[in-house]
């Protein structure tokens, strides 16, 4: 490598207000003009961003003890159940949890107007949250019932912990069937009436560091409008996904588990969502700064939509029943143009992830770094990459009575 730069050197420049920062979108033309080596010599950090629905998200809460104390057993926050199978007043509220008694899909397609993601949005917005809880009572925790309300500022901790965010690439969903379907990829009209995708493409964090050379455990990031960290690799992390020549995967690949203090986040970037006929979830805004340690990292950050491909998958039979493979590979520049061609048919496209939001996050992070209020961290450990040889598993479906098989 001709360019060599350390995180410490970058941080020294950030603190003196001299760091050179560009977004992953801005950097593309610069690298095109000057080449990766020359640009790498000039640029310290490239910022990325994404703002899409991320179901595997939620928050750990410690609500404090009432008098007398309680060991929470069954807990509802604005009627949405929270998991209480940890210590007495610790809870986990998941983004897709539905209110007790929600009609769900009994009247198909269900509306899912309010769920865990909406409770989190309301919490961050500073709204009062009603908590109804029961317990069986113990000598040390005698209280058996509480019906109260609290605001985010009135509880001890609220730690956003998202087990799987920031998917490196995702399926483009179409419907080959004869009736409209309602999926986590939105409403899909019959006979490929539309194709829905969900990635910021060239601005998306993991497309800009496809082999996870800089992003690791402890990487400081933009999370929900505040500061967060990469906690671990995400669930279903698949660094072994097939790669294109530029090392970006051509199917869902790496993922991140993220953590951060909810109390310094903004409701704008943690939005409760209602997917018709599917469920409730949350739209998460996150962005990762990529330190330009050398020209190789610079080259990765210059990736453009034309060179990132996503698989088109049928959600009528293909995805749910694991039938057939991908129908086509299409580029994010085609997806963003508003129309793709699949098996000779023109299909209008729509995104579930907000590119305008991703852009704003990348610019916000850039501004934070330029103004010296955000410094970079070196990862304490890298995440499993290609070498780990991870293979995704399916759930074993055994007959518990069939002793022979086991």
């Amino acid at each position, binding site marked *: 490598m001709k360019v060599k730069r350390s995180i410490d050197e970058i941080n020294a420049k950030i603190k003196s207000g001299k760091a050179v920062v560009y977004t992953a979108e801005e950097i593309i033309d610069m690298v095109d003009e000057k080449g990766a080596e020359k640009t790498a010599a000039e640029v310290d950090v490239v910022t990325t961003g994404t703002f899409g629905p991320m179901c595997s998200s939620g928050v750990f809460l410690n609500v404090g003890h009432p008098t007398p104390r309680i060991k929470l057993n069954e807990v509802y926050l604005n009627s949405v159940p929270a998991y209480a199978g940890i210590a007495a007043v610790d809870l986990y509220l998941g983004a897709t949890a539905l209110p007790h008694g929600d009609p769900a899909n009994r009247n198909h397609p269900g509306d899912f*107007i309010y769920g865990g993601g909406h409770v989190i949005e309301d919490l961050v917005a500073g709204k009062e949250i009603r908590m109804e809880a029961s317990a069986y009572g113990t000598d040390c925790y005698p209280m058996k019932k509480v019906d109260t309300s609290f605001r985010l500022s009135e509880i001890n901790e609220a730690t956003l912990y998202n087990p799987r965010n920031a998917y490196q690439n995702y399926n483009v969903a179409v419907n080959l069937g004869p009736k409209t379907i309602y999926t986590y990829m939105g409403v899909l009209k019959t006979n490929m009436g539309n194709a829905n995708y969900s990635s910021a493409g060239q601005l998306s964090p993991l497309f800009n560091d496809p082999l996870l050379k800089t992003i690791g455990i402890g990487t400081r990031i933009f999370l929900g409008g505040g500061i967060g960290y990469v906690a671990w690799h995400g669930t279903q992390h698949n660094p072994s996904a097939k790669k294109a020549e530029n090392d970006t995967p051509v199917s869902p690949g790496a993922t991140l588990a993220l953590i951060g203090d909810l109390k310094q986040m903004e409701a704008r970037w943690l939005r409760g969502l209602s997917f018709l006929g599917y469920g409730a979830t949350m739209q998460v805004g996150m962005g990762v700064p990529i330190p330009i340690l050398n020209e190789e990292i610079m080259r990765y950050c210059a990736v453009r939509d034309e060179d990132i491909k996503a698989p088109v998958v049928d959600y009528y039979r293909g995805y749910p029943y694991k039938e057939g493979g991908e129908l086509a590979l299409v580029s994010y520049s085609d997806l963003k143009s508003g129309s793709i061609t699949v098996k000779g048919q023109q299909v209008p496209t729509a995104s579930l992830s907000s*590119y305008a*939001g991703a852009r704003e996050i990348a610019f916000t992070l850039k501004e934070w770094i330029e103004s010296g209020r955000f410094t970079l961290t070196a990862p304490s450990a890298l995440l499993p990459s290609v070498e780990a040889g991870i293979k995704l598993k399916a759930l074993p479906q055994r007959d518990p009575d069939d002793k022979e098989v086991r």
Partner: protein
Amino acid sequence: MIKQKIVLRFPPHLVENPVIYHLIKDYDLMVNILRADINPKKEGRLMMELSGDELNYQRALEWLQEQGLRIMGLEQQIIWRSDRCTHCGACTVICPTEALAFNRPEMTVSFDEYKCVVCELCLRACPARAMETLVDNANSK
């Protein structure tokens, strides 16, 4: 000649009146009904395109008002709450008239209320629920 898309709102006690008959017979107007429904409160809503002689059209509107019906423009029926919109674009492939459109290269959603035909498909297709109707209609939840 005049051609207008309007919405008539019926209070419960007028829901059963044959208003269209009079518009055609007494005012010689052409009526193209786009949509009609009655909500659980028994209030009626009739969306239609009226065309005909301008003087007749004005007289018809006066007559409708005398009957106690509220007349509104079609474009006032669906509200895009830009503060709730995350600009993902999911609505833009569901909207049949391109009233909800995706702007490139800004990559933002915009709503042209004059192109809206009040099909209301966007109300439930928007994950952030940024689309709203003015009133409680039979078909909205």
